C-alpha cells in the first residue's frame, strides 16, 4: 500500500492537470439547509433522455414529493414537486443552459408548509428483490448526481444488459471549487454507506470501491469509520488529479482496466455511481422519498458566504445566492456565472435559472479567477497533447474544426473527447479549445440529424407516390369492373329482350 501503490496507479493514466482546487473555505463551512422559496420552477427535463410529461394541471394543489411529471420512454425520469403548494403555470421557463433557450416546466407557488405526500418506505431494503429496488429508484426519479444526470434505475437494475462484478462509487470530486460530495461524506457518511450497500444489493456486484481523492482527508476519515462494519465496501484513496472523476479514468485508476473507446463500463463488468446518488437511492428505497432536493456548492470570490447548501430542486440560482449572503461589493463584480464546476460546468447568462437535479454548483467568479485574456495563435507547443487524458491531439483537432473540416476532426478521435478542458487549461495562447470541440460535436450531430431527416422524407415521398399509384390502379380496376358489370347487364337485358321478342313472335306465329 502507500507510496508504491500510488506510484503504480498514477502511472496508469497519462495527462490530466493539477489546477488550484479552490475548495476551501467553502468545503469547511457547515452544511446549511435552505427553506423552500416562494416559487419553484421545475423543468420537465432534468436528465439525459426523453422529457417527462406533466400530469398536473394549473390550479392543482400538490404535496411535497408528489409526482408531477411522468417519465416517457425507456430512458427518462419522473419529476416530483419539491415543496407543497399550488401549480401556477405549466409552460416555458429559462433553462439552466448556456443558450438561455426556454424549457418546458412546472411552476409551483409554495404554501410555506412544505408538507410531504404519503410515502412508501421499506424497513429492510436488503430483503427486496433487486428489480424492486430498481423500480422504487425509478419511481423516485433518481438520476446521477455527479453531473451527467443519467437515470440511475437504468444503470442499477441491469438495464444495460451486462453482468456487473464491481460497483465503483465516484467520490473523487475532481472539479475545482466544488465540495458538495466532500461535505456529504463528512456530515452524512453513515447514510451514504447505507445507500452504497443498497446499491450493491441492487446491482448484484461482489464488492464496492469508493474512490476519494487524497485532498479530502476529513471525508476519507469519516467514510473509513462508516464502512468499518461492511466487508464488501472499501474506501480507496486516489491521487488528486483532474479529471479523476471522469468515469473511464476512475475505472482505470481503481481497477487497472480500460473501458474500450465508444464502450461502456458495463462492457468490463463495472458500474459507476456518484456518492450523492447513493444517498438519493437510500432516501428513495428506505423512506420512499423522491429526489426533490440536492446539495449544491455555492462558491467563487464574489460570494459573501461560500459553502454547501441543501437546495429544493427548482429554486432559482439567484435565490440560493441570496441565501448565501448575496454578492460581495468588492472584487470588481462578477465576471462569470457558472452552473457546475469551472472545467466542465455551464456558463449561464443569468442567475434567474432553476437548480436542477444535475446542478452541483453555483459559481460566481471574479475577473482574477476567470483569468481571461486575449487569445493568440497556436504555437504548436504540444502542451495540450501532453495534458489530454484521453491521448488525443487537441491542437490538430482544433485546427481542423477551425477550417470547417469537422469530418477530419472526427477522424482525429473527436468522439473520444470527454470535454474535460485540460487542453484549454494549459494552452499558453488561451485558445478556447473546448468550445471548438463542442461546436464540432454539435455540427456533426446536426448533420446526422439532417441526413436522418432526408431519409425520412425520401421514405415519405415514396410512400405517397406508391399510395397515389395504388389509388389510381384501384380506381381503374373498379371502373373496369363496373364497365364489365354494366356490359354484362346490358347483354343480359338484350338477350332477354330478344328472347321476349322471339317468344312474342312465336306466340303471334302460333296465333296466326
Amino acid at each position, binding site marked *: 500500500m502507500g507510496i508504491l501503490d500510488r506510484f503504480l496507479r498514477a502511472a496508469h493514466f497519462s495527462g490530466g492537470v493539477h489546477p488550484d482546487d479552490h475548495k476551501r473555505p467553502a468545503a469547511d463551512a457547515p452544511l446549511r439547509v435552505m427553506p423552500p422559496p416562494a416559487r419553484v420552477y421545475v423543468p420537465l427535463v432534468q436528465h439525459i433522455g426523453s422529457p417527462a410529461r406533466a400530469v398536473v394541471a394549473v390550479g392543482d394543489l400538490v404535496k411535497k414529493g408528489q409526482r408531477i411529471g411522468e417519465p416517457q420512454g425507456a430512458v427518462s425520469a419522473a419529476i416530483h414537486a419539491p415543496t407543497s403548494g399550488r401549480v401556477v403555470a405549466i409552460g416555458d421557463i429559462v433553462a439552466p443552459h448556456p443558450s438561455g433557450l426556454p424549457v418546458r416546466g412546472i411552476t409551483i407557488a409554495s404554501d410555506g408548509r412544505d408538507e410531504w405526500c404519503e410515502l412508501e418506505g421499506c424497513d429492510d431494503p436488503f430483503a427486496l428483490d433487486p428489480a424492486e429496488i430498481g423500480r422504487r429508484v425509478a419511481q423516485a426519479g433518481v438520476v446521477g448526481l455527479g453531473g451527467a444526470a443519467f437515470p440511475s434505475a437504468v444503470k442499477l437494475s441491469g438495464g444495460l444488459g451486462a453482468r456487473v462484478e464491481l460497483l465503483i462509487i465516484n467520490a473523487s470530486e475532481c472539479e475545482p471549487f466544488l465540495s458538495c460530495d466532500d461535505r456529504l461524506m463528512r456530515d452524512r457518511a453513515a447514510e451514504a454507506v447505507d445507500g452504497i450497500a443498497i446499491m450493491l444489493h441492487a446491482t448484484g456486484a461482489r464488492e464496492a470501491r469508493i474512490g476519494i481523492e487524497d485532498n479530502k482527508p476529513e471525508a476519507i476519515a469519516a467514510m473509513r469509520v462508516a464502512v468499518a462494519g461492511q466487508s464488501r465496501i472499501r474506501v480507496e484513496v486516489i491521487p488528486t488529479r483532474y479529471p479523476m472523476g471522469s468515469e473511464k479514468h476512475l475505472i482505470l485508476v481503481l481497477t487497472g482496466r480500460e473501458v474500450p473507446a465508444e464502450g461502456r463500463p458495463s462492457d468490463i463488468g463495472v458500474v459507476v455511481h456518484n456518492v450523492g446518488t447513493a444517498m438519493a437511492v437510500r432516501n428513495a428505497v428506505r423512506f420512499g422519498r423522491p429526489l426533490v432536493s440536492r446539495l449544491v456548492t455555492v462558491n467563487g470570490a464574489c460570494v459573501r458566504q461560500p459553502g454547501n447548501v441543501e437546495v429544493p430542486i427548482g429554486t432559482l440560482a439567484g435565490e440560493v445566492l441570496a441565501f448565501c449572503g448575496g454578492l460581495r461589493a468588492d472584487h470588481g463584480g462578477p465576471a462569470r456565472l457558472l452552473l457546475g464546476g469551472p472545467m466542465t460546468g455551464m456558463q449561464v447568462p443569468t442567475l434567474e435559472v432553476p437548480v436542477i437535479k444535475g446542478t452541483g454548483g453555483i459559481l460566481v467568479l471574479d475577473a482574477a479567477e476567470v483569468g481571461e485574456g486575449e487569445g493568440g495563435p497556436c504555437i504548436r507547443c504540444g502542451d495540450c497533447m501532453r495534458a489530454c487524458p484521453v491521448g488525443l491531439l487537441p491542437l490538430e483537432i482544433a485546427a481542423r474544426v477551425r477550417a470547417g473540416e469537422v469530418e477530419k476532426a472526427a477522424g482525429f478521435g473527436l468522439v473520444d473527447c470527454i470535454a474535460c478542458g485540460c487542453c484549454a487549461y494549459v494552452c499558453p495562447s488561451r485558445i478556447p479549445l473546448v468550445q471548438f470541440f463542442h461546436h464540432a460535436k454539435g455540427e456533426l450531430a446536426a448533420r446526422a440529424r439532417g441526413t436522418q431527416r432526408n431519409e425520412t422524407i*425520401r421514405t415519405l415521398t415514396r410512400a405517397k407516390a406508391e399510395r397515389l399509384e395504388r389509388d389510381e390502379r384501384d380506381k381503374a380496376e373498379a371502373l373496369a369492373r363496373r364497365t364489365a358489370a354494366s356490359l354484362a347487364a346490358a347483354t343480359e337485358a338484350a338477350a332477354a329482350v330478344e328472347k321476349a321478342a322471339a317468344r312474342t313472335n312465336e306466340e303471334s306465329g302460333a296465333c296466326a
Partner: protein
Amino acid sequence: MLAAILSLTILGAVLGAVLGVANRFFHVEGNPLVEEIEALMPGSNCGQCGFPGCAGAAAAIAAGTASPACCPPGGRSLAVTIAQRMGVSLAPGGADDPGPLVADIDESICIGCTRCIRACPTDAILGGPKQIHNVLRDACSGCAQCIDQCPTEAMVMQPVPITLQQWFWPKPALQG
C-alpha cells in the same frame, strides 16, 4: 471453300461471344454518379433548385453546372454529403444560408379546404374538409409546394425553431 467458311464462322462466333461477354461484364448504365446523387436527394421534386425535379438536379450537379448546395429542402447535411461524394469543396454558406425552412399554418385563417394536403409530397399536413389543418414539422421537407395552394394565405415558410436539444456552441471567432 469449306475451310474459308468454317474459319470465318468460327472467328465470327468467337468474336461475337467476346462481345457478348464484354457487354455483360463492362455494362455501363447511364452515369452512376447521377443515380447515386439522386438517391441522396429528398425526391419530392419540388423544383426549388430550378431544375426539372430531383433527377434533373442530380444530373446538373454531376455535370458540375449546379452547386451541391442547390437543394433547399436537403439543407446543409445533404450539401455536405454530395460535396464529399464528388470530392469538391463546398463554398462557405455564410449569411445567405437561412437554415432549413418548414411550412406553418396560421390556424386563425385556415378554412380547411384540404388543397395543401393534396399538394404535399410527404403527407406532412394533417386535417380534413372544414377542419383546421396542421403541419407535422418532422415530416415536412420544406418544398413549399403547399404555399401557393392556400386560398387564404394561411401557409407560410418558417425557420425551424432551435430547441435545447439541438442548440450547440458557435465556432469561436479568433484572430491570428
